[in-house]
């Protein structure tokens, strides 16, 4: 199975349709810990959205609230204009949880048949097995599967019927590279059928490659919400690195235009710049001869770190 790049853009998918998910001013605390703080999110039909954040950012809490597994302290969570529980009973939502283990002492086919029988708009069992790539292991006992196989069974349970929203909490945890690619291939087919997909992850490359919209959560708040490209742009800088012979002219380097960051190690200079063209030009005008010059965009990972660091610093400053 190969993964073919989807050509949808965020904007195309966002047009039209009532919100699939809407969080309005949602708060949730556990004791003194505020897991979700004044969350406002809207998801639209056909969107593939990544919920990105470090551990403890509130991803799982957000998904629990979304699925009605927990109730918010204040604010409202609506799915398809109704309560999460109603939406689930209507067979509009399929979910794959991070912690949800499977029923033990039963075979894969039996548990999938159960999921199909409980779904108001179910697909045939064989089709569900096929789509999740678990036809070959259908007669195995569920408690004898590897981590990756178990994930695929959970995915099959989440796609047992004609859901309009699929929710996945860190779905590729425990999968090897091949399984991961197969998994996202299967996921893309779901998206291409017009389903909204929301997945939580801390794998940035996954969010970058798969999602057409990325929501960055940090300490229960939405820090950024846009396409992966927009988030990278928001972090602003691109990075420049080069080596110099002789003494590093630090004072002059600090005067470079569009400078967002400067670090020096040995003869290597690393610069973050808002305008790399201007910065590099100025380096030459100083009469320097940079060797091994590299200019690169920040990866989503660095963008993510830049955004969360900035937020942490701001919070610290406000205190």
């Amino acid at each position, binding site marked *: 199975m190969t993964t073919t790049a989807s050509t949808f853009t965020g904007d195309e998918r966002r047009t039209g349709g009532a919100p699939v998910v809407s969080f309005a001013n949602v708060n949730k605390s556990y004791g003194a810990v505020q897991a979700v703080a004044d969350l406002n999110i809207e998801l639209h039909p056909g969107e593939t959205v990544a919920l990105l954040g470090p551990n403890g950012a509130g991803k799982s809490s957000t998904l629990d609230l979304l699925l009605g597994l*927990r109730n918010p302290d204040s604010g409202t969570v609506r799915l398809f204009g109704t309560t999460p529980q109603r939406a689930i*009973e209507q067979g509009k939502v399929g979910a794959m949880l991070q*912690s*949800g283990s499977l*029923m033990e002492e039963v075979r894969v086919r039996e548990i999938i*048949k159960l*999921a199909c029988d*409980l779904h*108001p708009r179910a697909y045939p069992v064989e089709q569900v097995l096929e789509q999740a790539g678990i036809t070959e292991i259908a007669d195995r006992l569920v408690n004898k599967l590897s981590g990756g196989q178990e994930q695929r069974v*959970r995915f099959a349970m989440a796609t047992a019927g004609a859901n309009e929203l699929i929710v996945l909490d860190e779905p590729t945890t425990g999968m090897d590279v091949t399984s991961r690619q197969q998994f996202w291939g299967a996921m893309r087919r779901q998206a291409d059928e017009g389903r909204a997909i929301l997945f939580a992850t801390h794998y940035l490359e996954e969010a970058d490659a798969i999602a057409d919209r990325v929501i960055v959560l940090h300490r229960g708040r939405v820090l950024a919400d846009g396409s992966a490209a927009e988030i990278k742009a928001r972090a602003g800088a691109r990075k420049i690195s080069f080596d110099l012979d002789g003494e590093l002219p630090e004072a002059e380097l600090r005067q470079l235009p569009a400078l967002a960051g400067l670090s020096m190690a040995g003869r290597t200079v690393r610069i973050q710049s808002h305008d790399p063209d201007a910065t590099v030009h100025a380096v030459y005008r100083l009469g320097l001869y940079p060797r091994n010059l590299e200019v690169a965009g920040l990866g989503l990972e660095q963008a993510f770190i830049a955004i969360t660091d900035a937020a942490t610093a701001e919070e610290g400053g406000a205190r």
Partner: protein
Amino acid sequence: MNTLIKLEVARTLRNKKFMFFSLLYPVLLYLMISAGVKTDSPVGDTKLSFALLYMVSMASFGAITSVLVGNSERIAKEREKGWTRQLRLTALPGHGYVLAKIASAAVVTLPSILVVFASAAAVKGVRLETWQWLALTGTIWAGSCVFAALGVAIGYAATGDAVRPIAMIVYFGLSILGGLWFPSTRFPSWLKHIAEYVPTHAYAGLGQAIERGDTPGGKDLVILVGYLLIFAGAAAWLYRRDTHKS
């Protein structure tokens, strides 16, 4: 929902260790307790011989063991592992879950009752009319559903390490108060009044009435049905509520 019931029954049957001990435990207890006793003299004012009285007591006791303790522990474990969270994300109604759990418990109790009866007949020479055997089997089997529902409720009300002690306290409390271990005729009168409303007492009472050849008491039946509704209702409510917090 039928699929879930079938699946719960199938996986209980596949759990050979659980089946084995659930079958063996009541019959061993019965044979041990009745071993040293002069078994054909009547016990208290029950007009029943020791072998006969204890046959029903131990069949009931054995049935309760597997459905109350077994059910609550298995359910608490499933909750911890997150399976019930996954199940909550399906359109399954709360009563469907409780029904499936009761059905899977009933699969274990029927053979355990039959084994006690068979050994009472073979080893202790207990003789009853055919209708009595059938009625006893049906009554004790059906009655065990009350305690299966209680087991589901406990499995949902308690978590982790607390499940076993709570289930054990409820289980021994009910067994002793209900007169499954020593006939309740030996209780002081104040305790007798309380014991009359304990579900195990009504449960054993139905069996003893059949052994005497009487019509089972309407009061006992009402008490048991009442408890069944309360326990099953509580279990279904706890199932629906549970995942909000766990």
